[in-house]
C-alpha cells in the first residue's frame, strides 16, 4: 500500500530532476536517485492521496480519454467566454448552484473540482462533504439540479473508472 | 514573418498589462487587486518565454519556472489572510 505512493513520488521527482538537468550522465543519475529516494521516504508516510489509483490498462486508456475531453471543453468554453466579454450588452446571468458527486476518493474529488474550475464559465467555490458549490456565469433557465448534474457528469464518468 | 508575429503578440501582452493596471487603480476591494496581481503574474510568464525566444537563450525559461512555482503561494497566503484563517 505504501509501495504505490512511494513509486509515484519517486518517479515524479526523478523526472523533474532529469528534465531540469537535461542530461543522462551517470553522476546525475546517481545523485538524483539518492535524493529522490530520501525525499520519497520522507513524504510517502503521511501521503494517502495516491493510494487509490488503479494501474490497470483500462484506467490508462481512460486517462487519455479524460485528457482529450478536458482539453476540448477548455477550448470550447474559452471561446464562449471571449464571446460574452466582447458583446457590448454583457449577456451574463450569474448564480451559485450545488451538485452532489458520487466519487469517494479524495484525489478524484480534487481532480474533478480542478477540472470544473479550469473550464471557464463554471468554478468550484467550496466542497462540503460530497456537495460541490459551483458558480456559473450563464445560468440557463432550465431547472438547476439538471444543470449541476450535466456539469459534473462530463468528467465524473471517466474519473469513476480511473479511481476505483 | 515569424519574427514580426511574435513581436505583435509581445505588444498585445504589454497592452493587456495596461488594462489590468487600470483595474488595479479602479478596483473597489482588496480581492479585486489580488485578482489583478494573479493575472499579471500569469501573463508575465508568457511574456518572459516570448523574450527567451527572441533573445535565443534557454536560461530565461528558468525565471518563468520560478514564477510558476512560487507566485501562487503568495496568492494563497493573501487569500487565507482575508478569509481570517491564516
Amino acid at each position, binding site marked *: 500500500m505504501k509501495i504505490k505512493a512511494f513509486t509515484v513520488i519517486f518517479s515524479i521527482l526523478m523526472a*523533474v530532476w532529469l*528534465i*531540469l538537468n537535461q542530461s543522462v550522465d551517470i553522476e546525475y543519475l546517481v545523485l538524483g536517485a539518492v535524493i529522490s529516494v530520501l525525499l520519497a521516504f520522507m513524504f510517502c508516510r503521511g501521503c494517502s492521496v495516491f493510494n487509490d489509483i488503479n494501474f490497470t490498462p483500462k484506467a490508462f486508456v481512460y486517462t487519455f480519454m479524460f485528457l482529450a475531453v478536458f482539453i476540448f471543453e477548455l*477550448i470550447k468554453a*474559452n471561446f464562449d*467566454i*471571449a464571446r*460574452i*466579454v466582447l458583446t457590448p450588452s454583457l449577456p*451574463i*446571468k*450569474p*448564480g*451559485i448552484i*450545488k451538485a452532489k458527486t458520487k466519487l469517494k476518493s479524495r484525489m478524484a474529488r480534487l481532480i474533478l473540482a*480542478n477540472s470544473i*474550475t*479550469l*473550464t*471557464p*464559465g463554471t*468554478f*468550484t*467555490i*467550496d466542497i462540503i462533504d460530497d456537495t460541490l*458549490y459551483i*458558480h456559473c456565469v450563464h445560468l440557463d433557465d432550465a431547472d*438547476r439540479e439538471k444543470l449541476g448534474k450535466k456539469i459534473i457528469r462530463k468528467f465524473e464518468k471517466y474519473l469513476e473508472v480511473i479511481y476505483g | 514573418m515569424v519574427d514580426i*508575429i*511574435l513581436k*505583435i*503578440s509581445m505588444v*498585445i*501582452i504589454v497592452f*493587456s*498589462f495596461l*488594462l*489590468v493596471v487600470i*483595474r488595479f487603480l479602479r478596483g473597489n*476591494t482588496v*480581492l479585486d487587486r489580488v*485578482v*489583478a496581481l494573479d*493575472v499579471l503574474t*500569469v*501573463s508575465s*510568464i*508568457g511574456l518572459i*518565454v516570448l523574450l527567451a525566444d527572441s533573445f535565443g537563450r*534557454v536560461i530565461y*525559461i528558468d525565471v*518563468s*519556472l520560478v514564477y510558476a*512555482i512560487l507566485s*501562487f503561494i503568495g*496568492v494563497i497566503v493573501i*487569500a*487565507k489572510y482575508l*478569509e*481570517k484563517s491564516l
Partner: protein
Amino acid sequence: MEYLKIAGAFITLGGSLFILFASIGLLRMPDIYNRIQAGTKASTLGTLLTLLGIGLIHTDWLLKIMMLIIFVLISNPVSSHILGRAAHYARMPISDRTEVDELEEDTNIVSQEREEEK
C-alpha cells in the same frame, strides 16, 4: 520545418489575444466572482497557448516548456478557487444580476442550527 514555425507563431498570437480578452473581461465584469471567472481562466489558456507556440518554434526546448505547462495547469485552478472561497467567506458584495446563491442559504442554515444548540 518552416511550416511548424509559422503554425507556432500563429498559436502564440492566439494565446496573446486570449490574454487581451481576459484583461478586457477583468475591466467589464460587474462583481468579484465574474472577474475571477473571466480573468484568471482565460489568461490560463492564453499562457498555455503562448508556451505551446514557443515550444513548436524551438523544438529542443519542448521538454522544459511541457514542465512549465504542467506547473501552470496545476497551480492556477488552486489559486482561483481559493480566491473565490475567500471572497465568499469575507462577505464581498455580490452583483444584483445574480439569480441564486445556494451556498449562502446552506451556510446560514448551518450557523443558525449551531446557535440554537448553544
